[in-house]
């Protein structure tokens, strides 16, 4: 699956017991795809020595401060690998 700019996605809410690049503050939150950035190895695999690691598209995903924090009028953009996301 791949996402187009403007697609709404929800970040998986899980709390894995290994390294991940999903910042805790976006877990379970819904954002909007800004762009597909590139394909890179998934750090969750690389950090565990899984060889070869999965390679996936990484997306810039934009969240609204009001959604993340309950207040604020700014936006926060986070780069997230495809398997961190579900279509919202």
């Amino acid at each position, binding site marked *: 699956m791949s996402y187009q700019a403007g697609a709404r996605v929800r970040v998986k809410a899980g709390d894995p017991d290994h390294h991940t690049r999903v*910042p805790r503050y976006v877990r379970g939150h819904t954002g909007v795809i800004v762009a597909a950035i*590139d394909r*890179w190895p998934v750090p969750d695999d690389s950090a565990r020595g899984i060889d070869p690691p999965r390679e996936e598209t990484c997306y810039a995903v934009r969240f609204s401060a009001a959604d*993340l924090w309950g207040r604020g009028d*700014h936006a926060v953009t986070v*780069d997230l690998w495809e398997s961190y996301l579900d279509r919202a």
Partner: protein
Amino acid sequence: MTGHDDLPVAARARRLEERLIAAGLTSDDEMDEFLTRLYTKASPVNGARMVARAWTDPRYRDLLLSDGDAAAKDMGFGDLSYALRIVPNTETTHNVIVCTLCSCYPVSLLGPSPSWYKSLAYRSRAVREPRAVLAEFGLRLPSGTQIVVWDASAENRFLVLPARPPGTDGLAEEELAALVTRDGLIGTAAV
């Protein structure tokens, strides 16, 4: 520079260096070359020069925005060891960079990062209340300006392209570069 040599952390760093060299993972020459690059070539002057060129050359601006790595190479900074993404400020949008997970930073274009960039306070507050954080840096943005925070959570390193200040029409590229600060390239200053 005195006193750092006999700190416990210096002994630990030396021991780690010896172990890495013994294991064949690096060499004295490689470490020297890396440190020379870091301390003599990595500087915010590099990022400032890219910005000044983008302000004066629309074609370079396009390259900078579409392929940061190619734009750095075009200025003679060689191959970056990271993917560079440029986020441009506009009349209505102001960008700020943070790495909440650690302290990712485009070192070769901005020089070694300031200690506040690595502080827990900056990393946790920049995403939550950037307007208040910027005000503490002395940057008070109009309430209508949209702030976009970029969390360097993956392989990208970010650089802000500040808006060209008004009243600088007559300045040459070199003079413009002198106006650009490290904080402007992080987004904690206007320029």
